[in-house]
């Protein structure tokens, strides 16, 4: 029963992708090519990383809107440190940014656990706080491609393999490596460890999870720390893909990622959501943002279309939940 409904959502999302791509393909034949696939993978990789983190948080029944600020904080501070010390190593960059992300994420998790206030309000506060601390105490200068560490710049140009096209070549970016690793790790944690069972349990009922012996504090710290780590990685990938770091970058992109995860079938009340759904959600949002222009709609229609999709998917998810609750004679919602 449960499997069938999850599959329904996946089929629904795949259907959207196929229908949408066909429509765009009819308008613009060049769209249906391997180039588009590679481009989509490249431009989705940032959002895909944090979408995985957000999925884990949402399964645990919480939310986080501070991750763009964490990603920017990690990326920006890492670049500042690398420029100051002259260390020019990609792994160092990833490690440092991830470390910052974990620390900020743990801070979020601790606050959410101890204050007993909706996580959205807390992370709205920490979003302002992180961004404010970064820009006030660390710096608000823009670093362009000239001063950026070479290792980060070269990371964005590297390709796993290349395919020859009629004109020039195209290839799969290195960005896909951290994403694939993150997918594997997330899958393993969610479905193959006790911690993963605890995350699902807490999303369904925190009280029940506590009574079977899970420690809510540990689980909260883990999900927010994990999100922080992924956000830190996303920070470096973002730097690499734009070849510069702006003090205002990324802030405000959280809505698109939340929309993607919600579209992927994650329930806001927790306990429900799939990795594949979240990834398909990211791809759909990304496709819409990049190709609405082919349908004759300017980029200012982005928010409208994504917002409409998000409203529809909230309606579907909550209607299903309500029907299920009524079947079980639950009237607590």
């Amino acid at each position, binding site marked *: 029963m449960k499997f069938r409904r999850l599959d329904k959502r996946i089929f629904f999302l795949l259907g959207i992708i196929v229908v949408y791509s066909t429509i765009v393909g009819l308008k613009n034949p060049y769209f249906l090519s391997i180039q588009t696939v590679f481009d989509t993978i490249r431009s989705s990789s940032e959002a895909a990383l944090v979408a995985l983190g957000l999925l884990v948080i949402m399964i645990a029944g919480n939310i986080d809107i501070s991750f763009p600020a964490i990603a920017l904080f990690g990326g920006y501070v890492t670049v500042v440190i690398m420029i100051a010390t002259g260390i020019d190593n990609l792994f160092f960059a990833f490690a440092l940014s991830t470390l910052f992300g974990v620390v900020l994420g743990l801070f979020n998790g601790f606050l959410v656990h101890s204050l007993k206030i909706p996580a959205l309000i*807390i992370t709205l*506060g920490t979003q302002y706080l992180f961004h404010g601390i970064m820009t006030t105490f660390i710096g608000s200068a823009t670093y362009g491609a000239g001063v950026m560490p070479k290792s980060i710049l070269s990371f964005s140009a590297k390709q796993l393999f290349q395919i020859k096209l009629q004109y020039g070549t195209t290839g799969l970016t290195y960005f896909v490596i951290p994403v694939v690793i993150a997918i594997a790790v997330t899958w393993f944690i969610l479905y193959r460890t006790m911690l993963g069972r605890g995350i699902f349990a807490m999303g369904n009922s925190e009280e029940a999870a506590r009574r079977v012996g899970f420690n809510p504090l540990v689980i909260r710290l883990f999900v927010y720390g994990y999100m922080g780590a992924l956000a830190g990685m996303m920070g470096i990938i973002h730097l690499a893909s734009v070849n510069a770091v702006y003090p205002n970058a990324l802030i405000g992109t959280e809505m698109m990622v939340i929309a993607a995860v*919600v579209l992927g079938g994650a329930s806001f009340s927790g306990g429900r959501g799939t990795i594949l759904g979240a990834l398909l959600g990211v791809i759909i949002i990304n496709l819409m943002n990049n190709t609405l222009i082919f349908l004759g709609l300017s980029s200012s229609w982005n*928010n*409208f279309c994504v917002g409409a999709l998000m409203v529809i998917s909230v309606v579907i998810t909550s209607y299903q939940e309500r029907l299920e609750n009524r079947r079980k004679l639950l009237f607590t919602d």
Partner: protein
Amino acid sequence: MRLIRELRQDSKLFVLVVVGIFTAILLGILIGDKLYTPRSLMSMAYQIPEFALIAVGMALAFLTGGIDLSLVANANTSGIFAAMVLKGRWFPGLSEGAAILVAILVALVSSMLFGLLNGVIIGKLSAQPMIVTLASMLFISGIGMALTSGNAIVGFPDAFTNIGTAHLFGVPVIFIFSMIVILLFGKALSSTSTGRRLYLYGENKTAARFSGFKVERLAMLVYTLTGLFAGLSSIMIISRVNSAKVGYGEAYLLKALLVCMIGGINPDGGEGKISGVLITILIIQLLTDSLTIWELSPYSKKLIWGAMLLVIMFLNHLYNRYRQKRQLERTVKGVS
């Protein structure tokens, strides 16, 4: 006298009044020569109404255990609708007076419809208010964005901008109007049966449902009302600033949450008073103006507001724990 009696009964309100007076005096000592000039007080009185209405809308959603994140987006987009009418792009051929009336009507109706959309999804489908209003925030601001491509619509008829700039005995008309609306609303909340129902609905939805309340209708009522507050605010914004655009007043959302937190509205619902919200709005406006006078960068302002929200939540948490402990002690005493 009644006020003093009320203050003695309500410790939270008392603390709030003390904090408010203390802040006002402290700011007066620090920068009083710039803050308490007639000009600065006047500009405060012009800025308070639009924010106060949004904050009260948020407080209403908070009272019922919900939240309305779409308020600011709703105000902006309804304002854009009104601006479209005023500029003659919609309903062309109206006389100036008629266009102004239609514009106001369009803003109010559209804001209430947006609110009703939230209310229907929350009430009829039992969706969580937070995710619903988050989605509708994106959707509603998307409508405004699609209409304007992010550009501002500027230049309205004088008769319309007069709404935002007119004053009566030196007090802005919009200030008087918004205070009357808020006080009437506060009165309605505390002394009508629907108002009391909203408190029970916020306190315990399941109990409210099984007490025979039409909870689905209550949800729709709440979010239509918050929408209406956003609509009133939108008219004040566009007539005062003489322009309508997406993304105006982005900090209002955080500040409105801050007002509810400081104003003693319990985010779990069922607790809080409009009088507390009103006092907090004045405090927040004083602080906003002080930050402007100190000429802080937008980044430091962000830091200060964010830190303040977290600190307030922490203090609230400590206070709640203290209160629970005291209640427990009292019960134990009563038993033995």
